[in-house]
């Protein structure tokens, strides 16, 4: 019982770290890219339509790590493989 509670507690901490650090990294990346986009658009406004597609694709790439992190966090929240090992042993 104590082992289960410990696993749940540490899993909660882990989920928080996965989502928090993933979101922080993605936000820093998006911030840098958006700043570069605004700078480029200010220098050459006629390039905005061309840059729009690139920015969208790169947004998807930057967010991919965060989305994968969210998926992993959901797996640990709803179908924790560590917890099932302990319950199976008991």
């Amino acid at each position, binding site marked *: 019982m104590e082992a289960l509670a410990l696993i749940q507690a540490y899993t909660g901490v882990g989920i928080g770290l996965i989502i928090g650090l993933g979101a922080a990294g993605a936000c820093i990346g998006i911030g840098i890219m958006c700043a570069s986009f605004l700078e480029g658009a200010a220098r050459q406004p006629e390039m905005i339509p061309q840059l729009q597609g690139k920015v*969208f*694709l790169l947004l998807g790439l930057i*967010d*991919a790590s965060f989305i994968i992190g*969210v998926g992993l966090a959901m*797996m640990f929240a709803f179908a924790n493989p560590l917890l099932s090992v302990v319950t199976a042993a008991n």
Partner: protein
Amino acid sequence: MTEEQKSASSLSTSIIDSNKIFNKMLQLQLIATLVVAVIAVIVSGAHAGVSAISGGLSVAIGAFFASKIAQRRSKEAATVLVNLLKAEAVKIVIIIVLLFIMFKVYKQLVPFALIAGLAASALFSGAAMSKLDKTELEI
């Protein structure tokens, strides 16, 4: 050709190109999802395949709705940026909601297959950059 006509022509060309790019992105995501699903079926059965497809499709559906918002045109950089960030927010919300539903509803879910499908679909969206480079070369 006047400056305005040139600008309008450039805008319409870029709209067609961005449609191509978004279509290519969705196509690549679906192909990646299918490949992962086939591997999952071979390795651990039909439920793993369904899980992989659901993981990949949740990203593809999110990307589809996001691309509709991202295609909105504007001459101001700030408006374009806000639209792109809105599109990304919508994409993330859709993905999280679909994943939550899958984890809650599908009892025989194979989590690792779902994550593999999701990861493949999310990462392969960036491969559409190659299409972007080709269209630019054609112009």
